[in-house]
Every structure is written in C-alpha cells, then in structure tokens.
C-alpha cells in the first residue's frame, strides 16, 4: 500500500507529446480509474508508473520513494495487462509464482502464497493447467492472481477487461471491486469504458491529449464536469452541446433563449456552449413541476431509439424554430438535441414537440477554452422570474 504521485510528468516520442505535464496524486488504498479516448496517453501514464517507459521530464513517487529511475521490478508494483500476457510456456502455478521464484522465496512460502492468491480469484484445482487450456475469464483471473501474489504496494490494471465478452466483463467488474475491498491496495485502472470507471472507482482521472482534465469522484465528474471535454466524455449517451452567446439577460442561441441573471458570470457577451444531458430534457406536457424548468423549446422529433427501459429521441431544432433564426447565423454548430423519455411516452417520428430543460442541470462552458462557467442556472433564474415567463408563453402560443 502506498500513495502514487506524478509530478509534472511529460513523455515525448520524437515529435508527439504522449503525456503533457501530468500531475496526479493518488492516495493510499484508493481505486483510481484513468479514462480517456484511445491514444490520449492514459496507457503511457500507466507505463510510466510501472517503469516500462521512462518519462522525458518529471518525477514519479511511490510511497516515499522517488522511483523515476528505478526499473519496474524494484518499484513494488504489479500489473494486469490488456492482452492478459500469461507466459504460454508455463502452467498456471508457474505463472503465478514467477515473480516469487525470481525473488528467491522459499518453496513453502511460495506454495502458501500461490494457494492464497488462487483462492482469492477462485482458481482452485487449476494450478496444473496450461494457460491455453483456460477460458478467457480464467486466464484473466490467473493474471490477477499473478499480480496479487507478490502483495504489491500498487496494483496497475491496463484495460484488463477489454478482451472479455460483455457478460464476463460485468461479472469481473464486481469481482475486482470485491478484490479491492479485500486487499485494500492502491489500484490504478486504465480504461476507455466510462461505465467501468463510473462503477468501480473512488475517483476518476479524465485524460485527453496527454493532459489531465479532471480528477474527482465519479458523480462529481458527471454532475460538475470541469470542462466541455469531461462533460462530453463522461455519460452515455453523451451530453448535448449548443453554441450560444452569454448576455446580461441570459443565454442566446440560434434556436432558443434561456433567461437568467448572468451577474457574476464570465465572460459576458462572448461565445459560450450550453450543455444539457439527455435525461435532463423533458417534454413540456410531462415536465415534473418540482424541477425548475426552462423556457419551452420547439423541436421536431427525428429518430426514435426505443431501448426498452427508455426511449432516446433525436430532436431537430431547425424545423420548428427556423423563422426565429436569422439566416446568416444559421449555425454549423449542433442543431440537434438528444433526449431520453420514459418508454411508455407516446411520441412519433417527425412530430412537433415542445421540450423544456431542467434549469438545475444546465451547464455553461466557455466556447474558446472549454472551461466550465457554471453548473445549473436554477438559482440564477430566480432573480428575474418575470423575464423568464414571458418568452415561455410566447413560444407556447407559437406551438399551437
């Protein structure tokens, strides 16, 4: 058990910067997921911690030791690989005990530890088998046993479940959580699957283009994304974004306006991006009166995706509100919104609908930098209640 600390770690490959001044503080016993799209540098970050690649600049500290220049074997880390990487020329027992044998443990101790580790991952009675005789899930369990048998300070997992089928993946996910509770070891877990990150980790580190975007507990990343990238990456299906302009009276977009008191928000009179998650848009007729709803937005349903437990509706903003747009402002930006509704909602394709947004779930981002301005405009809008009612009535009339 140990904390892991990355200090200004940069990794450059010739002209590509894989990891850019990464500062990461992972606490003792914490389960941290590194997530990001393919090629964002999360695996390189992991390899830097493991010692498989040396950072171009910066230092890596595990526990109290600066391990930047130590080889992987002296770092007290163990790793589970995406491609499992069991040694094909050794049986399960030899695979699990490989590290212990290299460290010249005595045979009794090795036997005892291998048995214990194989117990934890439920591999009893398979120690004599060859890796090729095992199923994918069993191989993965052997790899995990090999990693825990040495009782490492830090446990690194590089997309360990990526090669398993969907059902097994969900099963192994709970197994890993159980394992983390049982071992209480620091676990750093790389994945591009945000569902894995959301469900398993204490904190999520979202990485894009080699830079750390945000490191926070899963729900904080979900509800209060620091910037537009995190907002779009966390959550599935992802957040809707609409380009607009922040004025004194609120937000103006090509398709609709939201009125609120923008006092204290920066930058006024500048391009901002509004973000709203699909579940925070509702049909006006079904809107929950308890939530502070926004002005009505006219839209036309485009494609419906019934998922069983909910329906995803693609809304086209152009058709319903084209006369409200000035033609030269016809945006290249999103004119589509995705919303999710209850499965028993009666709605058809290519139908005019009025939708409202949940004001408390509206996110505003600075368009230029992508930085978050505010999460939720419910409190702000209370300041100017009269202003917000008027356009609602107006657009409601138009709908009729």
């Amino acid at each position, binding site marked *: 058990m140990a904390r892991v600390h990355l200090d200004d770690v940069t990794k450059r490959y010739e002209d590509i910067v894989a990891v850019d001044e990464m500062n990461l503080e992972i606490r003792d016993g914490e389960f941290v997921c590194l997530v990001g799209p393919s090629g964002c540098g999360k695996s390189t970050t992991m390899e830097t911690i*493991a010692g*498989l690649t040396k950072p171009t600049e910066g230092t890596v500290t595990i526990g109290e030791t600066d391990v930047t220049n130590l080889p992987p074997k002296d770092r007290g880390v163990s790793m589970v690989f*995406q*491609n499992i990487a069991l*040694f094909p020329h050794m049986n399960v027992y030899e695979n699990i005990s490989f590290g212990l044998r290299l460290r010249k443990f005595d045979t009794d101790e090795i036997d005892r530890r291998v048995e214990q580790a194989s117990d934890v991952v439920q591999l009893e009675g398979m120690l004599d088998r060859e890796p090729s005789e095992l199923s994918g899930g069993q191989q993965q369990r052997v790899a995990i046993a090999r990693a825990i048998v040495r009782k490492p300070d830090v446990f690194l997992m590089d997309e360990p479940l990526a090669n398993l089928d969907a059902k097994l993946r969900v099963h192994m996910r709970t197994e890993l959580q159980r394992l983390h509770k049982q071992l209480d070891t620091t676990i750093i877990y790389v994945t591009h699957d945000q569902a894995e990150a959301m469900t398993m980790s204490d904190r999520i580190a979202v990485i894009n283009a080699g830079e750390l975007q945000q490191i926070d507990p899963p729900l904080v990343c979900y509800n209060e994304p620091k910037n537009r990238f995190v907002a779009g990456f966390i959550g599935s299906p992802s957040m809707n974004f609409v380009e607009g302009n922040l004025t004194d009276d609120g937000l103006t977009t090509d398709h609709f306006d939201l009125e609120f008191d923008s006092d204290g928000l920066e930058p006024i009179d500048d391009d901002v991006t509004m973000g709203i998650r699909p579940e925070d848009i509702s049909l006006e007729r079904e809107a929950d009166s308890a939530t502070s709803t926004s002005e009505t937005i006219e839209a036309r349903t485009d494609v419906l995706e019934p998922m069983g437990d909910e329906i995803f509706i693609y809304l086209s903003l152009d058709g319903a509100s084209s006369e409200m747009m000035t033609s030269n402002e016809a945006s290249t930006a999103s004119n589509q919104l995705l919303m999710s509704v209850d499965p028993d909602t009666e709605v058809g394709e290519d139908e005019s609908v009025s939708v409202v947004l949940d004001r408390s779930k509206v996110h505003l981002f600075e368009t230029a930098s992508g930085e978050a301005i505010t999460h939720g405009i419910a409190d702000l809008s209370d300041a100017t209640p009269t202003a917000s009612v008027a356009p609602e009535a107006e657009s409601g009339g138009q709908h009729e």
Partner: protein
Amino acid sequence: MGAASDSTQTADDEMGPLERWTHGVVNDQEKRNRLYKALFYVAAAFFLVTTLFPFYWLLVLALTPSVRQADWNVSIPLLGEVPFPTPQGFNVYAFVEVFQQVPFHLYVFNSFVLATATTVIVLLLASLAGYVFGRLEFPGRGLMMLAILAVSYFPPAAFLIPLYDAFLGNAVYIPFLDIELFEPPRLVNTPGSMIMPFSALFLPLSIFILTTFYSQIPDGLEDAARVEGTTRLGALFRVIMPLSAPGVATAAVLTFIAVYNEYFFSSIMALQNQPEQWSPLVGGILSYQTQYTTDFNLMAAASIVGVLPMLIIVVVAQEKIVSGLTDGALKE
C-alpha cells in the same frame, strides 16, 4: 445423372486406353485420389533414393575390403553388366581400423568442441543482437541489419589471409598508414583461431533467424516479465528465448552442422593435419589418404562414424527445426 453416365459409357467404348484413363481420373474422385497418392509416393521415393543412396554407397565402400574395391559391376538379366555398388564382402573390422590407423576420435572431438563452442557463442551474441533488432526501435536499425547481412555475403576466403597473418602473431597495421594497432597472440593451432572466425561468419544468419522470432513475441509478455521482476536481459532468457525455442533450435543446429563440417578455415589455421593442432573431422578423414595409397574403405567408415553424432542431434531436434524453418509464428 443416368443420361450422363450413359453417354460416358458410350464414349468409353470409342476411346483408347490412355484417353479412357485420363477421362476416368478427371471425372472420378476416387481415381483422382489414387493418382495423387501414387504421385506422392513416386516423388517421396525419388527424394529418399537421392538422399539415402550416398549413405548406402558409403556403407558399401566401408564394408568392402580395399583389395576388392575395383569391380562394382552387377549382372542384371537382359541389361547385362551394370555398374552398381554392392557389398563385396563384409569387413566390419574397417570401423575398428579407422581408430587404429589414426586417432580419429580426436578429430571428431575437435570438431565437436569447435562446433559446440561456436554454437554457444553465436547463440548468445545473436540472441542479444536479435533482441535489439527485433524488439527495439532505434534510428539506423535497418542500415545496421543490412551491414550485418552483408558480412554473410562475403566469401570466407576474403578474410583468410589477413586473419591468418594476424593469428600467426604478426602485428596488425592500419593499411597504408603503417600505424601499428596491436600485436595479437599467436593463435594458430588453437581453437581460438577457428572459433572466432566461425562465430563471425555464422553470426549473421543466426541474428537474422532470431530477429524474426524475437520480434514476434508480444510486447505484453516482456512487459509482464519485467514488472514481475526480471531485467530486460532476464526477460530475454526467461521468456523470449523459451518461447522462440524453434527458432533458437534452428539457429543452433544450422550453426553446429556448418562448423562441424567446416574444413577450409580449420585446415589452414591448424598448421599440420594433426589432431593435437586442432585439425577437424574432415582433416581426419583425409588423413587416410597418403601420397601413394588411398584407403577408400577407411575413409568411408570414418565418414559414417563422423555423421552419426550429427544424425542423432538432427533426429532429436528435428521436430523443432521443421517448425522453426516453416512457421515461426506464435500465438499470443
């Protein structure tokens, strides 16, 4: 279906025997399989005869006493007298005489030691080189690989004179500048004078084979070994080499056979054809030939004795060599 076979029937009547046979082979699956099988046996028999006949001839030569090695004709009915080697006696004593006339076992020993030492050195160096070329990215890799392969295209004779000069203990000069570099020890008549050039000459082939094999081992396995507690070198010897066993065996056997059979360099580096001066196996075989006599039966017997260790090694390693030469693929 019935109409078709009817027409074949009538056609059969009008065709000659060869035409009928080819027609049958083309149309009938069973006949075709029979033909393929027959062709396979013919081809296999051809290769067996061409490779095994020399051994048969050696055996006949060895068993036939030297005084009767003049008349190899056999009379075959219709053809008359045909030259074909058949044993003219059964002189097993030749295999004993081989060791009595010259210390042939010492020559075999010399070749064995030279071959083993060279193989070990080549495998060690080629493994390191193969690891570097196969698994690491660095500028100039292709060019260096090309340079190493170019060495193997040089005729060995090109190196002979300068090496002989140096191994005699003469000082080595930079050409044209006459600056003395160093004075090597006198290595002629020692295994060093043979193992060094052999290693250099056979290294490129092994590097090439091992580079191909090592490059196919998934990176994850090496990373896993390193995280588990090996160094890069440890990962090479504990994981990469065992997984490349067919390739390593192929490189080893090819090197071993080449050195075991080598005569050109060693006959010159051993100043006289004596086992004490590290003259090799072939030198031993040739020593049954004197200025006036040639004991063909003893030379043949010595050749057979010399081939035996090779035969055993190849049979043992055969499975791995075959897979090493043909695939070299490894599943992750």
